[in-house]
């Protein structure tokens, strides 16, 4: 018993000791403090880890020379992709770090929960990864989004599917999350309004492991032209494989075309293999884009992390790029960051250009690019936008 309590005490002392080394204080003049609200723990860490890479790369680049004499600094808080932890993380950032601007969250629920906190503190929130329409409609003056929202994406994809792919029947596949349900609904409504038909509406949890059953069900639905799919990379991969195995999609000798969202990273085709043949999807980040900003990003990213950047890396990078641009245009405090950011026009980043409307939604659609997967698993840019 004695040794046990001794071990216990040692363990506790060790844990407490680790508190002491945490949180070293910083002090520096001429600093633009940026808060980063991203999920770092739990399944949502998928986003946070990639956001962090993109942001740190951008900050490193800007701090070589500084922006208008300012250096950029970022502090991340784990917002866990969930409303309460996100508001707590946001409040902690605001109270203790006092950033001029905050970037994040990825999950729409978390972003929506954080928005009133930011508004109250009068600190702008720059979002790139949440698609819920509610974030900017009605939104609030302090929240900006550089990514097209679910309505912009959904209407666009559904219209192209109907007009360019001549699709008349569709099956909706989506994860049962805010983003999944929201995007699928917009697609469905638009497609039906155009005269298309939704043969099945299949939502599933993020814990579903086997997609063969779903693919099998689709084989029994007759002629399915397009299958808009709203999932993250992990499940997306399995779905694409299952659909090909069941002979539904072109990759498996079938006729259906899978339609994808910006959620899937570059490199998805290589992982999915032949199953992804004919997959038409929008990407937020096109590595084949010849613009200098894109090619520089890819080169420096590979140099730093020794891997190919994803769209999440890219939109995180763009968030800092935009903030640096706002600082360059003279922003020095939270209010001026907000005001100058709201007036952004013709900003050009890795994922495309940015111009905000009244609700602070980026109205430029060139942030999404249509791609089709070719037999050698490379991309063919469709140039629909």
């Amino acid at each position, binding site marked *: 018993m004695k040794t046990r309590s001794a071990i216990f005490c040692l363990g506790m002392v060790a844990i407490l000791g680790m508190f002491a080394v945490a949180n070293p204080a910083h002090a520096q003049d001429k600093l633009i403090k940026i808060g980063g609200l991203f999920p770092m723990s*739990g399944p949502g860490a998928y986003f946070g*880890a990639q956001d962090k890479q993109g942001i740190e790369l951008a900050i490193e680049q800007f701090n070589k020379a500084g922006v208008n004499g300012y250096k950029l600094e970022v502090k991340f808080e784990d917002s866990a992709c969930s409303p309460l932890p996100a508001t707590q993380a946001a409040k902690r950032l605001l109270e203790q770090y006092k950033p001029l601007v905050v970037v994040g969250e990825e999950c729409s629920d978390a972003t929506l929960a954080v928005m009133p906190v930011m508004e109250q503190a009068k600190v702008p929130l720059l979002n790139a990864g949440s698609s819920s329409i509610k974030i900017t409609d009605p939104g609030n003056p302090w929240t900006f989004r550089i990514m097209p929202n679910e309505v912009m994406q959904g209407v666009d994809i559904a219209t192209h599917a109907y007009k360019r792919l001549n699709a008349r029947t569709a099956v909706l596949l989506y994860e049962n999350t805010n983003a999944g349900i929201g995007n699928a609904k917009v697609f469905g409504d638009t497609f039906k309004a155009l005269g298309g038909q939704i043969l099945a509406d*299949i939502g599933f949890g993020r814990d579903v492991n086997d997609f063969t059953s779903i693919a099998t069900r689709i084989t029994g639905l007759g002629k399915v032209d397009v299958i808009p799919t709203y999932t993250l990379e992990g499940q997306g*991969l399995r779905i694409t494989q299952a659909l090909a195995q069941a002979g539904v999609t072109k990759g498996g000798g079938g006729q259906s075309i899978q339609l994808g969202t910006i959620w899937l990273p570059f490199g998805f085709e290589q992982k999915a293999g032949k199953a992804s043949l004919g997959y038409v999807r929008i990407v937020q980040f096109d590595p084949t884009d010849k613009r200098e900003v894109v090619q520089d990003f890819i080169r420096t990213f590979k140099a730093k992390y020794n891997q190919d950047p994803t769209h999440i890396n890219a939109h995180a990078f763009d968030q800092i790029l935009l903030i640096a641009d706002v600082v360059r245009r003279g922003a020095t405090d939270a209010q001026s960051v907000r005001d100058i950011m709201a007036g952004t026009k013709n900003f050009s980043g890795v994922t495309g250009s940015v111009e905000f409307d009244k609700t602070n939604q980026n109205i430029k659609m060139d942030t999404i690019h249509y791609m089709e997967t070719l037999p050698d698993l490379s991309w063919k840019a469709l140039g629909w936008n």
Partner: protein
Amino acid sequence: MSTVLLQQGINGVVLGSLYVLVALGLTLIYGVLVQINFAHADVVTIGAFAAYFFTFTFGGNYLASIAVALLVGAILGWLVNAAIFAPLRERGSELLPLIATIGVSVLLQNVMLLWFGPIPYAFDSPYSNQVIRLWGGTFITGQNLIIIVVSTLTIALLYAFMKFTFMGKALRAVAQDRETAGLMGINPNHLIMLTFVIASALAGMGGAMLGPILVLTPFAGTTVIVKAFAIVIIGGFGNVEGTIIAGLLVGLIESYTTQFVNPGLIDIVVFTLLLMMLAFRPTGLIAEKREENV
């Protein structure tokens, strides 16, 4: 339509076999120790990662990686028992080990998150995309065939072990009456250790076979474990035959729920069945009468 129905049956059996592999370990542990092990899920995950790294980092053969995962699982089982269950056994609490395994589970998941990162691994075995055509337009992938074959073999081996070897008989004896083991001249601690090693080896192996099917992240095992608990209950805690039947049943329920209703409702259907089972037949599908000695 009949092809679709038949195909869903095959899908259900494949999924069920996977669940059985995970649930069997849980039911073995419960039978002998009357303890619930939440860390079992993470043994599955670690088994999957072991197989992944063996195949992709070290260039090993996928089938050999199943054996590697089995070994890794066995070692983990030994560790979990030695570190958690053995010290807590004397306390005789049914709750403390359960909580401790929740703690271990959180610990393991987050250590894996640190090491392996949150981005899903694309773990495809050489058999993942092989499609084998069966009768009447149905098909099965090579990977799924491996799952069914290996599961069946494992279950048969386990059965033979339990039925024909001395240790196996002792295990069954302990599962039925814990005092008997002492009478058979076996150190119950060794038996419990053996149970853990076998159960976790099954989980590790299950991980290696699940890896190419599920989304391999540090949280992969947790998506299976709650359902595995349901299967263990539906089959009757500690009852191997019941677990096998229940596993297949749940697999079939999943595929037919997907077909006729919506995959989003699978959990509701499965767990409602669980509650019904508990209310009307708490001894499980195959009743095993245990009388309380007063």
